[in-house]
């Protein structure tokens, strides 16, 4: 996970999903390798607990370690968080599996169903559904503790949904075709669980990005300034051709006035462009053009929200400058 390789587009929401899916697969491969190559001597009744708690821990690890990598935390800063979060997920998953198998199943099922529910060798989603859901919940709880409860609903609901999705993938792949194949099913479990967990539990937050103004016209091409301040306080950047005191200088020959436009960011990291000049000022985006030319009859300048990729045109005709508002990883400063 590298924030520099994740541009600020809708696609960034999938980055954690791919990352966690990879770790889910790795977790499944690890457990399978233990089974196949190390021939464990534990009772078959523990297989489910081992698999689910390992996957829960692996996916929790992926979430925490991924966040640490994105935030470019030092190794020492990250280790205790990773160990604590992973351990919590593993232990909660084991406890949840035990509760589901030994308590819930015994209370809910009776007769033949109770026998089937207690049969640890039976391949069945029906009697393992809760185990998947609770293990998914555990994979969300571990990171949630470290994130101090932030996004608790996403972690709990997303984690549980991820576990259930993994269980459904496991079930469907097991019974694909006429047969029963828990090899592909196991891979599907790890991959689907990790993907949905990464998608729902923790998205890459906007705070990891900062807004930048970048010159796109000929003069001073590619010059750029960040809009956000280092301390995260609301800020406003001014663009014009004053030689002193402005944040971004553009030549008057390009149709830029002394103080032509400003871009502000508030405490919730919302960006706004304000037209400060009587000269043409437009914000353009796909299928949309917003005129910000200052109207002296209005009490305040016109303003519009900015999003990454918006263009701000200053002046018109042969004398025109162009800026781009783009979100870039904050670490790039």
């Amino acid at each position, binding site marked *: 996970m590298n924030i520099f390789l994740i541009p600020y587009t809708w*696609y960034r929401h999938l980055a954690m999903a*791919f990352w966690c899916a990879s770790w889910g*697969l790795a977790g499944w491969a690890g457990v399978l390798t233990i089974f*196949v190559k190390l021939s464990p001597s534990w009772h*078959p009744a523990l297989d489910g607990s081992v698999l689910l708690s390992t996957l829960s821990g692996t996916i929790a690890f992926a979430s925490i370690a991924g966040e640490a990598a994105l935030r470019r935390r030092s190794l020492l800063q990250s280790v205790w968080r990773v160990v604590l979060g992973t351990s919590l997920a593993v232990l909660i998953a084991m406890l949840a599996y035990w509760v589901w198998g030994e308590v819930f199943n015994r209370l809910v099922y009776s007769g033949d169903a109770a026998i089937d529910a207690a*049969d640890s*060798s039976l391949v069945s989603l029906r009697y393992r559904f809760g185990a998947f859901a609770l293990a998914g919940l555990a994979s969300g709880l571990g990171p949630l503790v470290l994130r101090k409860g932030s996004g608790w609903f996403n972690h709990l609901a997303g984690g549980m949904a991820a576990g259930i999705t993994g269980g459904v993938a496991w079930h469907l792949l097991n019974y694909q075709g*006429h047969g029963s194949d828990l090899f592909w099913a196991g891979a599907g479990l790890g991959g689907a669980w990790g993907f949905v967990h990464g998608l729902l539990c923790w998205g890459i937050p906007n705070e990891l990005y900062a807004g930048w103004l970048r010159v796109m016209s000929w003069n001073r091409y590619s010059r750029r300034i960040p809009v956000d301040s280092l301390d995260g306080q609301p800020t406003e950047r001014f663009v014009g051709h004053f030689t002193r005191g402005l944040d971004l200088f553009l030549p008057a*020959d390009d149709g830029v006035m002394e103080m032509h436009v400003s871009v502000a960011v508030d405490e919730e990291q919302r960006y706004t462009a304000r037209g400060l000049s009587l000269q043409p000022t437009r914000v353009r985006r796909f299928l949309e053009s917003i005129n910000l030319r200052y109207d002296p009859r209005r009490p305040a300048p016109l303003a519009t929200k900015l999003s990454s990729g918006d263009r701000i045109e200053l002046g018109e005709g042969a004398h025109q400058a162009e800026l781009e508002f783009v979100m870039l990883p904050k670490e790039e400063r």
Partner: protein
Amino acid sequence: MILRVLFGVSLLSGCGDGLTPIPNTTTRVGRPELVDGTELELKIFTTLEDCRARVQPDEVDLCMPYVDRSNGEVRLGFQFRLDSDVFPLPLTQEHIKVGHLGRELQGGGANTINVVPHDPVRSPQLFILLIDGSSSMAQGGRMEKVRKSLLMPEVVGAFFPSDIRTRVVVFQFTDRGPKPLGGRLQVLENGREYRKMIRDHLRVQSGYTHLYDAIRYATGEFLQQQAIQDLLTLYEMTPTVVALTDGFNNVSSRDTCGVNAERLSTLLQHLERVRSPEYGSDPRSRPSVYTVGLGRPLRPQFEVPRSAGTTVGASVLCGRRNVNRRIDGDLENRGIDNASLEWIAKVGGGASYVRQDREGLGEAFRGAAAERYHWFEARYRIHPYYLRRSFRTTLRLISFATAEASVEIYPSAWLDAPPGEKGEGGWTVQRPYRFIMVLLAPAFGMLLLLSYMGAAVFNAKRSMFMRVRQPRAPTEPAPEDHQSEPDPPVEGGSL
């Protein structure tokens, strides 16, 4: 603390169940359970140590239990032991019954059963050849075909292998009963004596075919002779009866096929008795009966009924339309009584062959003189549904001797090793574990590609659509002081 206790308790709860994990699989097996009171010990291999000690190194994988749930296949390696020694047998799938979850599996449909022998070995044997000498053998050069096939080097080699001690006794049977070839009983000790005997004395006699009586004599009275008993005991030989005929058991010209049913029942009861433990025969000295038919089978589709014992119904043996037809001059011209031959071989613990040419007969004789095998694979294929939980597989020997064992198999309820690939005969061959890379490498590659896809598309899009705009009017360079505009927080670099 609670978690530690729970974890410890749950781990401890798994100990002591005697389950053995099967390497390279996610399957575990319990301890094999032997049925008491059987003559042979049916040893099912469940541990690597067992297999390494008993089978060739390159066959250890085949010896270990294997469950391929995706293909619905189960494989078990087993062997027979007597007094703790390996007891090789010439086993085929007809000789063994396989049970799954307490029910006997029947072949056909989705179910397939196969027994694969391994590690062939020649064991000391006394071959008792019973050759039909009736007058019908003169037709079509049948006796000549028999002689030539018996003199084929491969057949001679099968009867007298170089690495083990075997003996051959040859009888011809007619309505005067079985007579030793050459007029007096002679135990042939090598291929030279055997060839001379066949060349010089095998001739067509006259009379009817007293096949049942001949087999009864060879498996009873003959084996009880003191000299033969001594021979069997001295060299620990197993008697193997090979009976050849070109037609029907026929005692008189009025005989119909239906009449033979009662005679066959009597013979089968005799065979069952002489092969039973109550008869006092050691499995090593228990006779096996192989039958060879020369000609076309009268009932090509005949199969001995599964539930058949030693009581034979006339319509079952002959087919309803043949029950009252005469053998002499009618049925014997239409084909040979393959039904009787198969029934005798089944109860006699052997196999039945029906061939028409010299090569076919040679093959049949070689089959009758078959090698024994040290160990076997029992393979069966059922609907994968029946493998979705732990199950018990039972193996039961139904000829040669009594032996039965079962083992509880626990495939993992969560994971499987890579599924096998189809091998020869449609049976699955276990894939090496590295097959997992076939899944992991593309999956990781795809996820990595997708991870970079966002940046790649973003940069590609910008490189295509975000080029510097060409100046539409000449612009003067910025004044010197313009270059020293106030420093922005950070400036420079390119995207």
